[in-house]
């Protein structure tokens, strides 16, 4: 027990500093040189202080959004992999992101022009879309069983994913070319949130999810081995599964509506972290959140600087960096 505590403390310290450095460092990096002294110079009015505007309006919200989305997707990935007892599960496996994408597509093509507290119709619609997907998948998993079948959950999720993807293509096909291009761009992910409104809207859901995540690890350890064994050890399996499913799904929905369906983080980060700290969810879950945050913040720095002034989609960066790196890790470990 004390050993786990010690390892937890060490990994929190290491990965925590990594995430902290990424969030602090990212706003300092960029194609426009800014002077830190000028950023925090209160004697210059904010409206005339371009350095401060670049720091506080453009870069800091982006870094924070990257941290929030990265942490959420990585942690949700860990939870889904344990819940479905499938190492290939991602936060998007059960159709949450496809539902979110469909919502966003509809908002874009129907030209919904609404916004509330700085949250645009596209963001709101994508979150509603993810909720619909979660609801449908859950109803399916409940329908045939008294309890909660993870097999049916997986099958229903994968099927729903394909079905929503087909609907997305259909909506895109009917859209005119400008809209089709916008919908495609949305699918590639974007963290340039321009202000703190969208961030504040996603934050409460993520916090609720992380509170649930904090309660889960011990049960997930047992659950990821065998549900019967977990039940015999006093785990309320149904309740744990339900909490895991809903918290991870909500968090994913919030993250996707904030940054788009940014791929690779939900699968690569959990595995990367497991290679470093072992399989104990008490360490893997928080460590994945921190590494996910650091990784996405760093990837976004690349996205906004690599081809500047042209902005690269961050989802492409995560896939381009993540894929080969993960393969290298696999080969090296052996």
């Amino acid at each position, binding site marked *: 027990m004390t050993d786990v505590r010690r390892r937890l403390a060490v990994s929190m310290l290491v990965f925590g500093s990594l995430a902290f450095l990424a969030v602090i460092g990212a706003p300092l990096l960029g*194609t426009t040189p800014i002077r830190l002294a000028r950023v925090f110079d209160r004697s210059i009015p904010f409206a005339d202080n*371009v350095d401060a505007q670049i720091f506080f309006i453009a870069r800091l919200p982006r870094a924070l959004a990257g941290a929030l989305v990265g942490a959420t997707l990585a942690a949700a990935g860990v939870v889904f992999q344990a819940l479905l007892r499938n190492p290939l599960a991602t936060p998007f496996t059960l159709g949450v992101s496809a539902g979110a994408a469909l919502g966003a597509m509809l908002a874009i093509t129907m030209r919904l022009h609404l916004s509330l507290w700085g949250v*645009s119709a596209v963001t709101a619609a994508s979150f509603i879309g993810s909720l619909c997907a979660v609801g449908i998948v859950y109803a399916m998993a409940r329908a045939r069983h008294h309890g909660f079948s993870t097999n049916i959950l997986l099958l229903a999720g994968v099927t729903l994913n394909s079905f929503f993807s087909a609907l997305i293509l259909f909506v895109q096909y009917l859209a005119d070319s400008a809209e089709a*291009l916008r919908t495609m*761009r949305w699918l590639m992910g974007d963290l340039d949130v321009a202000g703190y409104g969208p961030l504040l809207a996603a934050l409460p859901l993520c916090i609720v999810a992380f509170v649930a995540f904090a309660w889960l690890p011990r049960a997930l350890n047992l659950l990821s081995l065998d549900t019967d064994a977990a039940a015999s050890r006093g785990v309320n399996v149904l309740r744990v599964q339900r909490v895991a499913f809903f918290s991870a799904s909500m968090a994913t929905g919030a993250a996707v509506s904030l940054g788009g369906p940014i*791929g690779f983080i939900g699968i690569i980060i959990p595995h990367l972290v497991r290679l470093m700290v072992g399989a104990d969810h008490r360490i893997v879950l928080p460590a994945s959140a921190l590494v996910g945050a650091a990784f996405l913040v760093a990837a976004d720095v690349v996205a906004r600087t690599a081809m500047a002034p042209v902005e690269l989609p961050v989802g492409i960066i995560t*896939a381009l960096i993540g894929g080969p790196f993960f393969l290298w890790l696999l080969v090296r470990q052996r």
Partner: protein
Amino acid sequence: MKLGAGGWGLGTGGSGLGARDSGLRIRLTAAVLALVLLVSAPDARRAVAARTVESGHAPTRIISLVPSATEMLFAIGAGPRVVAVSSYDRYPPEVDRLPRVGALVDPDVERILSLRPDLVIAYSSQTDFLAQLERARIPVYLYRHGSLADITRGMRDLGSRVDLAAEAGAAAARIDSGLADIRIRLAGKRRPRTMLVIGREPQSLRAIHVSGGYGFLHDLLDLAGGDNLFADVKRESMMVATETILARAPEVIIELHYSDTASREAEALERKAWRLLPGVPAVKNGRIYLLYGGELVVPGPRVVLTAQAFARALHPDVLPHQEAVRVIPQDGLLDRK
């Protein structure tokens, strides 16, 4: 907005990567298809170009899948010979009575063949479709978008293809003189640093797409007396970060909205979105101009109207500007709301 297959193909390809994790496999397939289309396009172009020379007589049953080419045909008097148009055609009003036979990615081949055309105007990237037309021995005219100069050049070329060279020459000359008139009136005026926004997420500053330093929109902005903020990037369209906008500090922002109408409230809300960047000179000085109308971005005979709309926004002292400029297609006059 008209986009060549290039924009489409690349866009799809990128999203295929991005959506990989979410299991949108079909998208990846679409991306590969689009890339194949792109890669194989030049060969088809050559083959078809060689064949179009053969058929000598003036076509009388024309199908146009390219909206700007449709507009050109009507502008040079070939309108009565057009028997079908693409699903995106909206102008001139006469096209409303014509059958719609698909567009860039979904040409309705059966319908097109059944209309027995003797000329089909298509995009060079529609390789499969072009091969089908070739088998049916239907002559093809390939249309390509490019710079502003390509518009009148393309119009003259299209005119000689449909045996209306003189009419096309006259119409092209009218466009050239209309553009020259604007250029002359604005000669020597100070050229504000201008950002031309061609799309963003409604009521927020997310996914801001602007015109880079290539294409007819950039040329029109240049002609209308504005210095494109992103002239150094030789692309038709690019997405920019808010940081770049803050750093480059545009003096004027022109936004194109493709809907023909917008309520005053909607317009005010779109304008309000820019308040997130109070330090940008265009925002500070209230020099944000929202232009409405899908016709603004058709690289056809009405580019003079787009140039006028830009010029009004950029140089209100020369050409007075009010809240919103709307191009009214019917009488070709600029109407101010």
